[in-house]
Every structure is written in structure tokens, then in C-alpha cells.
């Protein structure tokens, strides 16, 4: 199978941005404020830095093997058995990440808007959307993310801008926190929200100009990080760190506190959740696509289409496992931290070994990769 080099830099950046911005935005200010109070933005920036680190490690790795994805080149770097284990972990992790994201959003919807609709329905609807679209090829994958990008960024920005009139800058000071240990775990929690960007490890072989992957990675993560930062700043500015600790989804509360000028809409929470479906869809789409693409590459299948609906029951069952919201967030935090090992430490290890062994892919970027 010939890989078609067709992704442009902008498309790659868009995929990265929309892979990061998702349901994690809703509890993000809570994570940040819990870890460091008024220094929440600092935590967010720290998490973003970790996200950058992960993406750049993958990019440097990917540029050594321009025609292969991380699943495909890892056996050449560290040998088949270890690489197989690593790849399996990646697949497993992203399957779990997909189910947790679907479950988290389903929970938000059921708690705040559709209070009598069964949780299963909201979860399966989101998963079906992602599974259906994940059957499409990488070109439509890229087009989808590019088209959705403005509709993901706009609602966040609108809420931030409109709520700034209620913000109190005093609440954002001091910008430095002091409890280093709590802040450290906070950074890890926030960094876990950037894990969708792992998709870059699969995109580089499809890029028209792989040498521009650094630009794509930089912009993709930056845009998402900026939105995260803005939302944390707005939430802390409006509510204050102490009040945020009382709120499960501060971003949603922010939307609730916001009304459009001239009271066209008096509160935006339900509208925000509705529009946010698009953002959650793109995140799910990325992790779902990543899961089945990795599976098809690991098991050398001809394409990933058939896997899409095959793994749906598994994902759905995993999504329904956590019992309550409290347990859900415990699991999310735990899985997120464990995931950092996979999304940052594992590629870093690969990069280290590859540079010691001087392992490299074919230099001819047009050669068929298989």
C-alpha cells in the first residue's frame, strides 16, 4: 500500500488542535485551581509545556522515519517483542482514553442538560459518530478537523471574552504558587489533557512536507494551549480559586454566568454544551482513529475500516465501567498520569535508543512505506 503524502501543514496543525481541545476543557479550571489556587494559569502553562515536549519528541522521532508511524518503526529501534508490547499499550491506552472521554461528556450532558436521558444513550451516540467517521480515510480525517476547527475555537473564545467583564484581576494574583508537590501533580493532570496530540506520531508519514512537522506541531499545540490558558484565566478571574474548588465543571459554570449582549440568550450553558459536542466529537474521532489505525498497522491489516465497528462494543463497555462521577474522575486522573508514560516517556525512550543506535528510516521520502 502506497502512503499518499497529502496532509498540508495547516491540516496537521488543525488535527493537533482539535485533538487536544475536548471534554477536558470543562473540568480544567478545577484541576488547575485545586493544584495551585490563583497560580492555575501557571499550572496550565506547565501542562502545555509537557504537551509540547511530547509532541516534539514524536516529531523528532518521526522525522528519522519519514515513511513510518510509531507502530511501524518501533520494532526497528528496540526490537520486535518490546515494540509489540509498547504498541499494544498504546492501542489499549487510546481505547481507554476514547471511552473515558465519551463517558465524561455523556456524564456532563446527563447531569446538566438531558437529565432523564440514560447515560448509555449519550455515550453511545458520541461513540457512533466517531466510529462512523473513523471508517473514512486520512484525507477526510484531515478535512473534518480543519472544517470543525473554527467551531471549536469560537465558543471557547466567545465565553472567555464575554465573561471577562465580570473578572477580577485580583483573583489571579499571586501568579506563582508555592506548594511544589501539589503543583507538580497538577501539571501532570493538565498535561494528560494534551495526550490526543500523540496522533502526530501517525501523521508524519502522511505529510506532504514532513520537514514542516515542527511548524505544524508548534502551532497545533500552541493554539490549544492558548485556549486552555484563556479559559483558566477567565474562570479564575470570574470565580476566584476558592469558589472554583466548589464547582465540578467550572467552564460550564462560566458559560452559565455569561449572557449574550442585549440578552439574546440569557445564559449559554446549554448552548455551550451543544456546540461543544463538535469539540468532543473531534477529540473522540482522533483517539478512535488512532486506536484502529494503530491496530491495523500492528497487525498488518489492509485497512482500518473493518475495525471501526468491531471495537465499538469494547470501547462502550469500558466507558460504562466507572460507577459514579467521583470514580470517573479518579480513573481519569490515574489513567491520564499513566498515559504520560506512554505518550511522553515511551517516545523519549525510543528517541534515545534510536539516536544511540543511529537507526534511521529510508531517506527517500517518496519510497513506498510498508
Amino acid at each position: 500500500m502506497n502512503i499518499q503524502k497529502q496532509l498540508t501543514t495547516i491540516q496537521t496543525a488543525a488535527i493537533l488542535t482539535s485533538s487536544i481541545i475536548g471534554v477536558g476543557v470543562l473540568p480544567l479550571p478545577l484541576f488547575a485551581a485545586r493544584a495551585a489556587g490563583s497560580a492555575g494559569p501557571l499550572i496550565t502553562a506547565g501542562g502545555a509545556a509537557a504537551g509540547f515536549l511530547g509532541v516534539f519528541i514524536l516529531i523528532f522521532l518521526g522525522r528519522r522515519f519519514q515513511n513510518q508511524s510509531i507502530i511501524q518503526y518501533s520494532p526497528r529501534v528496540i526490537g520486535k517483542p518490546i515494540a509489540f508490547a509498547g504498541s499494544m499499550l498504546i492501542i489499549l491506552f487510546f481505547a481507554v482514553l476514547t471511552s473515558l472521554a465519551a463517558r465524561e461528556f455523556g456524564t456532563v450532558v446527563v447531569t446538566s442538560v438531558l437529565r432523564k436521558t440514560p447515560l448509555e444513550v449519550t455515550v453511545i451516540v458520541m461513540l457512533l459518530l466517531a466510529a462512523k467517521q473513523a471508517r473514512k480515510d486520512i484525507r477526510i480525517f484531515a478535512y473534518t478537523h480543519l472544517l470543525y476547527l473554527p467551531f471549536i475555537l469560537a465558543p471557547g473564545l466567545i465565553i472567555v471574552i464575554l465573561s471577562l467583564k465580570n473578572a477580577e484581576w485580583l483573583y489571579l494574583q499571586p501568579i506563582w504558587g508555592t506548594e511544589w508537590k501539589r503543583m507538580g501533580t497538577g501539571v501532570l493532570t493538565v498535561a494528560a489533557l494534551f495526550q490526543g496530540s500523540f496522533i502526530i506520531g501517525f501523521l508524519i508519514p502522511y505529510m506532504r512536507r514532513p520537514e514542516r512537522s515542527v511548524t505544524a506541531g508548534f502551532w497545533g499545540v500552541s493554539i490549544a494551549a492558548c485556549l486552555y490558558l484563556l479559559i483558566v484565566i477567565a474562570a479564575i478571574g470570574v470565580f476566584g480559586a476558592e469558589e472554583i474548588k466548589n464547582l465540578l465543571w467550572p467552564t460550564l459554570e462560566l458559560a452559565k454566568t455569561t449572557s449574550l449582549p442585549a440578552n439574546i440568550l440569557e445564559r449559554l450553558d446549554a448552548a455551550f454544551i451543544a456546540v461543544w459536542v463538535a469539540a468532543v466529537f473531534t477529540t473522540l474521532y482522533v483517539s478512535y482513529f488512532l486506536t484502529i489505525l494503530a491496530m491495523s498497522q500492528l497487525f498488518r491489516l489492509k485497512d482500518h475500516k473493518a475495525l471501526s465497528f468491531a471495537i465499538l462494543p469494547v470501547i462502550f463497555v469500558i466507558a460504562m465501567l466507572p460507577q459514579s462521577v467521583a470514580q470517573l474522575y479518579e480513573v481519569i486522573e490515574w489513567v491520564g498520569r499513566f498515559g504520560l508514560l506512554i505518550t511522553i516517556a515511551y517516545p523519549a525512550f525510543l528517541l534515545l535508543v534510536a539516536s544511540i543506535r543511529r537507526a534511521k528510516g529510508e531517506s527517500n521520502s517518496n519510497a513506498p512505506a510498508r
Partner: protein
Amino acid sequence: MHPLVRRWVLLCIGIVMLLTLTSCWDRREIEERAVVLAISIDKATDEEVRAKEEISHLINEFPPPETGFIKLTAQIAVPGRIPLGPSEGGGASSPSMEPVWILSAIGYTVDDALVTLQQELADRLFYGHLRIIVISEEIAKDGLDNINDYFRRNPQIRRLTWLVVSEGMAADLINASPELERVPALYLLATMDHAVELGKFPNEFLGKFWTKISNLGSDGFLPYIKVKDEENIQLAGLAYFQGDKMIGKTNPIEIGVLMAIVGVPSGGYSVLTPYPDESHPVLFRTTHRQTNITTEIKNGRPEFTIDVALEGSIDEKLKEGIIQFDRQSTVQAFQEEVEQRAKKTYEKFIAKMQQEESDIFGFGEYIRAKHPSYWRQSVHSSDHWRSIFKDAKMNIQVTVKVRLVGMKAN
């Protein structure tokens, strides 16, 4: 069949199945919702408690609450009684055509009372348009923890709702039916919204109140409202809190003082200033305020410098004669007089709040933000901050600028 045809057919069947099978779990038409516009919370009297039915719990299951049962009164919009669009012909409101329905219930907690209320109502209660929550002074003095918890938890509640404290019975406020607006709750809402627009009250909605009481370095305050002549509503000052408990109230004019100290830009209060003597008062109206607060830690004690700049105009004077506002020197002298008096009022008000140990100005937040190391070392809790606040030194400077004197030449 062609696979794509099959897909369309399946999609259609799917939609029809969903429509019929799900029976639209959450669909509830707007007219089937009992739209609660306002809620008031009072202490229940003993007779009322005895008449309470066993709905959410058996009566003897829990000991009676320490602070007593509450009586919750809700104002529910009656669909069809509130006309669509500009009043369609003869808006004469006969008593039988009341646009709202007022119901009350007794409960152990807020939700308990609401569940009881639901029991006697066909339509489901809907709080998405709950615009105003009135609590009686008694309840406020016992603490708002329960009320805060319920309203924070319920996703339908707006954070932009007004929470107000009423003098006497809160239900009276809900029952008051002013002439200007057909729906009493909307009148109450308009009273508060316009007070903010006119600069008569800071925009202190429920969300902000929650923020203030959550913060370690500030205390909350709420509008204090009373009913006059059974149908008139007056903004009678502000109720200040210590934690979740109300501890006192101020005069209306002191709202203006508070707004000046925290620096709410739009000013709306007028003050009578005797100038040049007691028998010749002049009315000065503030239009803009700007406040700059700086903090210092001196000898392990916080010290605040509050720099208030007021801008305003002269609204009226009582008698013709002695002074004429046609020279800058006269205006200047008048300004100084206002500055003197304002400074004294501010000092007195801050001292009063220090005495009461209620930091409604949020001075503690300044210390937390600007002097984090002091905060960490010396302040441990909001209670502790209050005791520090009590002894904090306050320097107040007031600058007044009179810009306009109206259309009169002198």
C-alpha cells in the same frame, strides 16, 4: 438491495424507532413546566410545621433542624395570563387573572420543601428562569450553607440570579404586587437590575456572592430590601455577612460608601453637603468613581491606602444667595468641603465594618494577592483574616472633582 439504499432505509427506521421508543426522555414543553420566577425562604411557624405531610421523609426520622423548619414560597408563572407582545386590548387586571401563582411549602431543607411543593403541583417545577431568591433576615442570620449547597448543585439555577435579604417576611416581598409590572418577580428583578444601572448597587449577583464567601479574604454582602405599603419595594441597604451568616445591615447611603471604597465606576448616589453652612445645603451627585487601593505590611500589620477619586456634578441647592457656582474658586472650595465630609464618612464606615469583623470590601484579597508570603505565614483561615482586618490601619484619601453644574449659570 443496494447497500446505500439499505443504509437510508435503516436510518429512517432508526429515527422512527428512536422517536417512538425513547418517548423523548427529557422533552417537556415550555407550557408544561411550572416556571418558577422567584422563591422566598422564611422560617416556618410551629403551626405550619405541625401541618406538614410526610413526603420526603417520615417526620420522626430526623430530629427537627437546629435552626427550625423553613417555609418556601414560590412564584410560578401561569402560562396564558402573561400576554404575548404589547398588551393586547384592555389590560385591566382583574384579581382572578393574576399572572402568577404563589405556592408555599414547609420543609426540612430547601429541596425538601421543593419536593413537597412538587407534590401539590401538576406540572414539573422548572428553575431555569428563577431570577430572584429572597431570604428573610432570620434565615440569613442562621446561615446560608444549605441554601448555597442546593442552588450550587442544581444545574438549572442561574448564577446571575439575585439573592436578596428581606426585612421581615420574605414571602411578603414575593406577594407584593407593584403597579408597574404585571409580574411581581420581574418587577423585583427590574428593581435590582436598574439599581445596578443607576449606580445604586454593585452588580452583586448570586455567583459573585458565592465567590466572595468562598474567598478567604473577603466577606459577602447582599441587597437588603423591604416592603413599603404592601406593594412597594425599597432597597433599604445592604446585609453584610460573616462567612455564611448575616451579621448586620447598613443604611442605603452606606451602599454608596461601599461602592466608592471598592471602586465601582458608575456612581449613582447624591449627598447633601452643607455649604457654606448648615442652612444652605447643596446636593452633590457622584457620576464616576475610581479607587486605587495599595497595601503595605508595616510591623507585621497590614496597612491600606485607599485613594478614592470622585467625579460628579451639582444637582441643586436649597437657597439662592450666598454661593454662586460660576467661579472655579467657588467650585474648588465646595470640592474640598465634599472631600472632607466624604473622608469622614468612609473612615466611619470602614471602622464600623472592622468592628463587626466583616470584610465586605475584600481587603483580604489584596493582601493574599500582593503579599503572598505574609498571607501564608500570618493568615491561616478566613476567621483569622477577620481578626487581622479588625486591627488593620486604613488611610483614606478622597479627591473630588466637580465637572458640571447643570443648566443654571450660577
